[in-house]
C-alpha cells in the first residue's frame, strides 16, 4: 500500500462537465433559457464549440440539419478550427465548406452521396484528414467508444420550450447521436421547424437538449428512396424476375432488406403481378427492414407485406404510414417512428436476405461503389450485406443457404445469410460492372488509405444476379469455380468474354449458374406491363391518394 495513496485519487474527475459548464456560461448571452434566435446561431456556435472538438453535424442520407450546417460554416476559422467531424452523412455543400475554410480538419463518416467527388478532391488536396469510412452501425458504435461527439447539432420537426423534440417519421440517427453526446457531457443543439406548446410525441427528452433554434425554413430531406417506376427498364425487370424465381422462391425468403436501386424497386413492383402468378403470396417477402419505399405501396395494398420497420422516413409517405399502422411502426400520436441504429441491427441480425446493387464486382465477388474519383461511402450496405456470425436463431432460408455453403451434411449445421448483388453487366456510359480489380484498390493506394474501401466482401456474397443469369457462389467449391461462376454471368464485359465456356457450362449443369431459360423465364416477357405501378401517379392511386409525392416527381 505504500506506492499508492489509500484515499481517493486527487485528479479531477469532472473536467468534461466543467468544460461543458464553461461553454454554457459563455453561450448564455445568446439564449433565453434553451431558445436561440436564428440570427444568433453563428455567435452561439463560436461561444460553444472549441477548436479540435469532435462535432456531429447531423445529417444522413435523408434529413439534414442544414440551417446549423450553414451557420457552422460561417464561424470565424481563427476562433474555431481543426474540428473533427464525426457524422454519418457528408451530403451538403456546407459540409465540405467546413474543410475548405479550415474550420474542420478530420473526418469520420459513413455516406457521402452527392459529395463523393468533392470529398475525393478535398482528400487529394489534403483539406481532409480521413479517419475511416464506416458503416452506420460501426460509426454509431464508435460514438460510445472513441468518437464521442463534444457537440451534436441535430434536427427535429418541432420542439417545446423544455427542449423536448419531436422528429416524427424522421427520427433516424438522432436518438443515438444525442444519447452519446448528452450522457458524455457534450452539448446538443437542435434546429426545428417550429416551436410548439406540446410536442405530439417525445422522441428525445428535453433534458438531453441544451439549445433549440427555430430555423427560418424547414429542414431539408432528400427523397433518396423514391424511384419513379417510369424509369425502370426491361432489363431491370428481367433481373427482378430472376431474383424472385431463382432466389426468393427456392429459399422461401420472408424477412429481408432491399437496396435503393431500380432493380430492387422492380422486385417490389412485380410482387403483386409476377410473383402473385407464381403463387408466392404469403410465402416470400412478408417482413421488411426497409425505408418506406413508395414502390412498395402496391405490394402492401395487395396484402403481400405484413410489416416494415424503417431506418428513416421518406418524403411524402407520412400520411400513408399513419393510415397503415398494421404495417408500419407508429407512435401513440399516429405518426411513424424510425431509428437507423435499431433498423441496421434488424437488417443485420433479423433478416435472411439482403439484395442490393453496386457499381463494381471483382473476380472474387468483392464489390465497391467507390470509383477513382468518387468516395461514395457505404451507408448500411456492408452491415446488411454481411453474414452475421453472431446470429443464433434458425430459419428455413438461412439453414438452406448454410447447407449449400457446407456442401455435405455436417454434424454441426450452420446457417448463412443470403447476400445478393443484383446488377446489370454494364452501368452508365457503358462502364462494366464486372472488373478484374476494383477501382477502390487504386483509390486506396493513391490516398494512402489503410483499408481499401470494399462495400461487400466476396466471401459474404451468396448470389450475383445479372440479366444473363444467377451465380450461386455458395455452391462454388474453389476460388477457380467462383471466378468462372462470376464470369459466367458477367455478360459481354471483358470479364465475361474471358470466361472458360466449358467450365461455365459445367457450372450450369450443377445449377451454380442458372440462365433465364433454366428458370422458365423468357427475357422477351420482361416488359413494363408487369409493373404493378408504371408511374408515380399510379403509386399515388394505389395509396388511395395518401402518398404525397415530392414536387420533383410530380409530372402531372
Amino acid at each position: 500500500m505504500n506506492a499508492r495513496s489509500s484515499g481517493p485519487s486527487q485528479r479531477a474527475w469532472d473536467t468534461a462537465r466543467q468544460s461543458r459548464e464553461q461553454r454554457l456560461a459563455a453561450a448564455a448571452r445568446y439564449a433565453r433559457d434553451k431558445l436561440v434566435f436564428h440570427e444568433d446561431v453563428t455567435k452561439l456556435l463560436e461561444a460553444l464549440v472549441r477548436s479540435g472538438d469532435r462535432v456531429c453535424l447531423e445529417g444522413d442520407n435523408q434529413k439534414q440539419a442544414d440551417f446549423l450546417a450553414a451557420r457552422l460554416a460561417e464561424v470565424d476559422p481563427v476562433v474555431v478550427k481543426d474540428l473533427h467531424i464525426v457524422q454519418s452523412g457528408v451530403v451538403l455543400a456546407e459540409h465540405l465548406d467546413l474543410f475548405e475554410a479550415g474550420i474542420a480538419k478530420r473526418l469520420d463518416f459513413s455516406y457521402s452521396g452527392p459529395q463523393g467527388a468533392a470529398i475525393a478532391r478535398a482528400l487529394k488536396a489534403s483539406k481532409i484528414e480521413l479517419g475511416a469510412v464506416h458503416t452506420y452501425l460501426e460509426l454509431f458504435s464508435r460514438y460510445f467508444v472513441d468518437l464521442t461527439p463534444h457537440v451534436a447539432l441535430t434536427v427535429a420537426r418541432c420542439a417545446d420550450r423544455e427542449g423536448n423534440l419531436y422528429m416524427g417519421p424522421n427520427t433516424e440517427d438522432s436518438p443515438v447521436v444525442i444519447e452519446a453526446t448528452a450522457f458524455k457531457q457534450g452539448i446538443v443543439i437542435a434546429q426545428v421547424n417550429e416551436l410548439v406548446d406540446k410536442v405530439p410525441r417525445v422522441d428525445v427528452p428535453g433534458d438531453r437538449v441544451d439549445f433549440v433554434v427555430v430555423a427560418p425554413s424547414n429542414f431539408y430531406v432528400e427523397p433518396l428512396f423514391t424511384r419513379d417506376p417510369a424509369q425502370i427498364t426491361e432489363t431491370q425487370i428481367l433481373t427482378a424476375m430472376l431474383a424472385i424465381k431463382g432466389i426468393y422462391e427456392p429459399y422461401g425468403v420472408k424477412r429481408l432488406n432491399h437496396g435503393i436501386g431500380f432493380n430492387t424497386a422492380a422486385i417490389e413492383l412485380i410482387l403483386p403481378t409476377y410473383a402473385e402468378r407464381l403463387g408466392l403470396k404469403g410465402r416470400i417477402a412478408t417482413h421488411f427492414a426497409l425505408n418506406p419505399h413508395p414502390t412498395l405501396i402496391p405490394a402492401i395494398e395487395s396484402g403481400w407485406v405484413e410489416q416494415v420497420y424503417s431506418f428513416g422516413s421518406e418524403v411524402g409517405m407520412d400520411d400513408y404510414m399513419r393510415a397503415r399502422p398494421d404495417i408500419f411502426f407508429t407512435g401513440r400520436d399516429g405518426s411513424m417512428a424510425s431509428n437507423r441504429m435499431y433498423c441496421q441491427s434488424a437488417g443485420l441480425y433479423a433478416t435472411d436476405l439482403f439484395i442490393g446493387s453496386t457499381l463494381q464486382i471483382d473476380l472474387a465477388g468483392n464489390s465497391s461503389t467507390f470509383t477513382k474519383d468518387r468516395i461514395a461511402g457505404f451507408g448500411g450496405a456492408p452491415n446488411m450485406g454481411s453474414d452475421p456470425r453472431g446470429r443464433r436463431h434458425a430459419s428455413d432460408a438461412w439453414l438452406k443457404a448454410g447447407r449449400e455453403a457446407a456442401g455435405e451434411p455436417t454434424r454441426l449445421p450452420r446457417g448463412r445469410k443470403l447476400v445478393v448483388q443484383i446488377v446489370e453487366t454494364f452501368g452508365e456510359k457503358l462502364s462494366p460492372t464486372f472488373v478484374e480489380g476494383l477501382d477502390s484498390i487504386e483509390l486506396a493506394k493513391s490516398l494512402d488509405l489503410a483499408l481499401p474501401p470494399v462495400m461487400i466482401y466476396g466471401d459474404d456474397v451468396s448470389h450475383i444476379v445479372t440479366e444473363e443469369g444467377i451465380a450461386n457462389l455458395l455452391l462454388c467449391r474453389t476460388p477457380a469455380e467462383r471466378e468462372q461462376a462470376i464470369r459466367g454471368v458477367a455478360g459481354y464485359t471483358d470479364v465475361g468474354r474471358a470466361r472458360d465456356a466449358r467450365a461455365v457450362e459445367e457450372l450450369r449443369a450443377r445449377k451454380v449458374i442458372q440462365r433465364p431459360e433454366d428458370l422458365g423465364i423468357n427475357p422477351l416477357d420482361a416488359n413494363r406491363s408487369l409493373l404493378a405501378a408504371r408511374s408515380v401517379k399510379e403509386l399515388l392511386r394505389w395509396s388511395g391518394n395518401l402518398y404525397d409525392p415530392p414536387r420533383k416527381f410530380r409530372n402531372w
Partner: protein
Amino acid sequence: MSETGRPFGASASWFLSTARERLAKLLDAGSFTEFVPPSERAQSPHLASFDLPAAFDDGMIVGCGRLDGNSVLVAAQEGQFMGGTFAEVSGAKLLGLIRAARDDEKLPRSILLLLDSGGVRLQEANAGELAVAEVMRAIVEARAAGVAVIALVGGRAGAFGGAGLIAATCSAIVISEQGRTGVTGPEVIETNKGVEEFDSRDKALVWGVTGGRTRRLIGGADAYAEDTAASFREATLALMGKARPFDLATLRAEQARLAGRVGRLGGCDRAAAMWKALGVADPRAAGDMDDPVFVALVADVKGAGDDAR
C-alpha cells in the same frame, strides 16, 4: 411493316410508349400503312457531322390507316429520338403528308398529328425552323380545303417550340395529363432567365405551367384524354367531323378567346391561382384527382369549351 415485338395493350401508357406503339394501338388493328418507311432509309445526312446517330425514319412516321373504320392520314413523332425534333427530313415528311391531303380531295379528310417534340432540331436549325413554317402554312391551307387536322399531345417531349405552334395551328388539340405544350422549354427559360423565373427540376411547377390539365382548363386544348391509346382514340373520334372552318369568323373568335384569357388570368402568378380564378375550388386536389372526375370538373369551367382556333 410489322410492329415491335413488345406486348403493348391499349391500356399501356401513351406517355411512355414509342411512336410506333402509339400508332399501332390508336388505329384499327393492322390498318396502318407507312409512307417512306424505314426500309427506304430516309435518314438525316447531317447528324453524323455532330457524331450523332441517325434514325431510319428520322423520328417522323407518316402514313395512313383507319380509326373506327374512318380513313385517316397520320403522322407520329418519336420523342425519344433527338427529342422528336423538326429537321430537314422529318419536317419534309410531315409537309409532304399535309400537302398531299391539301391537294387531293380523294385522300382522307382527317390528319392526326401525334406530336412528341421539343421543337426544332438545333443541329439542323434552319431547315427545321423553315419546315415548321411550311407545315404551319400547309395546315392552314389544308384546313381551308376542308381537312381536319387534329393534334394529339401526350408524349415525353410534349409539344414545344415549333411543335407547340403547330399544335395551335391545328383544328383541334387532344391532350393528356402528362402532355405539355409551350414554346420555350422550362430548361431553356431557366438557363436564360434564372432558376427564380423557372425551376425546371420542379416538375409540379413545370406541369402546372405547361401540363395537360392546365391546358385543358384554360382552353389551350379542346379535349382531354387519359394516358392510354384507347382514350386518345375515343377523344379523337369525338372530335372528328367537328372541325371549325379556317376563316375570318374562327380567327375573330380565337382573338376574343385569347384576349379574354389574358383579361381573366393575366394577373395570376401560379397555375394554382389560375385554376382558382377559373372556379376550381381546390387546385391541389384537382391535380391529383382521377381523370373522369377531372373531365367532369372541366365541363363546369367557363371558357374551357371554347374551341375557336
